[in-house]
């Protein structure tokens, strides 16, 4: 990589450099963990306020509309809903600290037990989709940039344009109709065998790939127009080495940030994809719990989703710093 602009720090002893970035990294991780705890507490407070802002009597909701008044009253006492708000808040926070998010209003199971496996399913769907999206977009983006303004490039840009403008529930339904109902190749819902993964992963992954491709292409075009590429060309470096070694490595920095941001987006899209393909994930659980007004379950889902996003954000930050050590000194 002799073509990257010279870095004055190249002359520093390697150990010193390593120590400095290591220290900055450790401090940054510590900062982020403190932020995460703070954000978690803030989120719980927010969720507590949120559910007291919802119109309607929570005790009546648990008991059901036709329940007699004395039953509602006993539920109110049992759940501590007759206590002052501040007492309710401290008990709620104390309970959550021990992992007790309450019971689901309907299945009467602890929220944590329901949410746990669902979270894993969502993670599986998002991870496979992300993998597909990254692979497809890197390949198509590089192809598109190398064949700039060639029919190949136009075809790929048209694909990404269609992908960006078609919501996943449209592509999802079309896929279900074509492969599930018409051709009967693939199951239309659930997640028992690998065949169940194909449609949800492809729908979500390709939708993400469309957006990524556009950005990868832009980053690659930018990198291919740099001086070091011209230098490499004039030295007679083969074109594939230029594209994959010189340009791609330099384009990778913005691309990593982009993928990181996209991961959050994929998790958001998973909520919709899960509803289309009956995927037993956290997103569908959240939507179902909202529709059935199962407040403790909704609270749990929102909390775990939010923590997931914050965690993803932290990982992306670390990844970015690892890829670009210049960031660590800032």
């Amino acid at each position, binding site marked *: 990589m002799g073509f990257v602009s010279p870095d004055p720090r190249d002359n520093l002893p390697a150990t010193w450099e390593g120590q400095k970035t290591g220290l900055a990294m450790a401090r940054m991780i510590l900062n982020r963990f403190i932020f995460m705890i703070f*954000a978690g507490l803030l989120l719980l407070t927010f969720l507590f306020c*949120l559910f007291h*802002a*919802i*119109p309607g009597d929570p005790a009546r909701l648990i008991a059901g509309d036709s329940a007699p008044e004395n039953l509602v009253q006993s539920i109110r006492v049992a759940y501590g809903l007759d206590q002052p708000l501040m007492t309710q808040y401290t008990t709620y926070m104390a309970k959550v600290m021990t992992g007790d998010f309450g019971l689901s209003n309907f299945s009467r199971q602890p929220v944590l037990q329901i949410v746990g496996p669902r979270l894993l399913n969502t993670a599986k769907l998002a991870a496979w989709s992300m993998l597909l999206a990254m692979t497809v977009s890197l390949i198509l983006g590089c192809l598109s940039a*190398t064949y*700039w*303004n060639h029919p190949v*490039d*136009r075809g790929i*840009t*048209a694909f*990404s*344009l269609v992908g*960006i*403008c*078609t*919501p996943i*529930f*449209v592509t999802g*339904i*079309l896929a*279900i*109709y074509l492969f*599930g*109902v*018409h051709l009967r190749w693939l199951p239309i819902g659930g997640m028992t065998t690998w065949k169940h993964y194909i449609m949800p992963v492809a729908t979500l992954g390709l939708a993400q790939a469309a957006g990524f491709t*556009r950005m990868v292409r*832009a980053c690659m*075009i*930018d990198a*291919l*127009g740099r001086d070091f590429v011209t230098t490499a060309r004039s030295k007679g470096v083969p074109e594939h080495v230029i594209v994959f070694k010189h340009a791609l490595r330099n384009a990778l920095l913005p691309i990593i940030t982009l993928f990181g941001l996209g991961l*959050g*987006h994929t*998790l*958001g*899209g998973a*909520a*919709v994809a899960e*509803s*289309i393909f009956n995927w037993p994930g956290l997103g569908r659980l*959240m*939507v179902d719990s*909202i*529709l059935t007004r199962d407040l403790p379950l*909704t609270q749990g889902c*929102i909390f775990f*989703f*939010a923590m997931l*996003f*914050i965690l993803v*954000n932290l990982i992306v930050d670390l990844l970015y710093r690892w890829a670009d050590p210049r960031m660590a000194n800032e």
Partner: protein
Amino acid sequence: MEFFKRYASDKVGLFFGVLLLIFYFVALTAQWITPADPFETSLSEGLQPPSAAHWLGTDQFGRDTLSRVILATQVTAKITTVALLFSLLLGVPIGMIVGYRGGLADAVVMRITDMMLIFPTIMLAIVIVVVVGPSESGVVVALGLSQLPNFIRIARSAALSVRRELYVEAAVSAGAGWPDILLRHVLHNISGPVIVKATLALPGFVLGASSLSYLGLGVQPPTPEWGQMLHEAKDFLTSAPYLIVGPAIALSIFVLSANMVGDSLNESLDPKLKGRRLKRILPRLNRKKAMS
């Protein structure tokens, strides 16, 4: 004026601009142009394939799908416009004030938007729907609030950039107060980019509204909405697959047009983008191939 000229010279942008105008025309005149009553049920005519009487067929209650798609255009246009105005009217003043004044308020507002931006907008919207309840106005509030951080950021960065301009300094030295400066100078100078950014955000609003409705958290039946119609049509995929055609095409083309118009507007406002081509989706034909 130059702005319009630049926009008109962009053929692709012009085409999609006209398409978007047609959508809004349909939305405005929906009451009069629907071929049948979109709410009238007739169970004997349920799930009919497309015919001369019902161009897109009928749904499970015998309602004319074409009429429902047309009315859904109105519903979507109404929701997204109001939600967009909501974010604009709330986000721009906040962003402008914190950007111009700086200080503690700026830091606090920026941290809050940072926190909100960690979450995808659809998730924020879903959480807000939990509080406001699934309904048409619920969607408006959910979309408006979930997109708010973006608008605050846009207005703030625009205000930051004009804060140091000479005309602002002149106004300060002439004794103008900050509300006056914000209204007369800052707002005037940032309105262009802010409006373009609002157009760029429009597809997001449309997708958000239909996603929420698809999940059952948005527009409630019997009011038609593209996402909600697709959700209903999904149950009849084996017997009546034609039900998905209308809403799917209308939704995709609306989002596509809004996307393209936003991009073209952005480009006509900032011609530098033309050369950099980072924003543009379709490759421009007259560009020299740089890597030959």
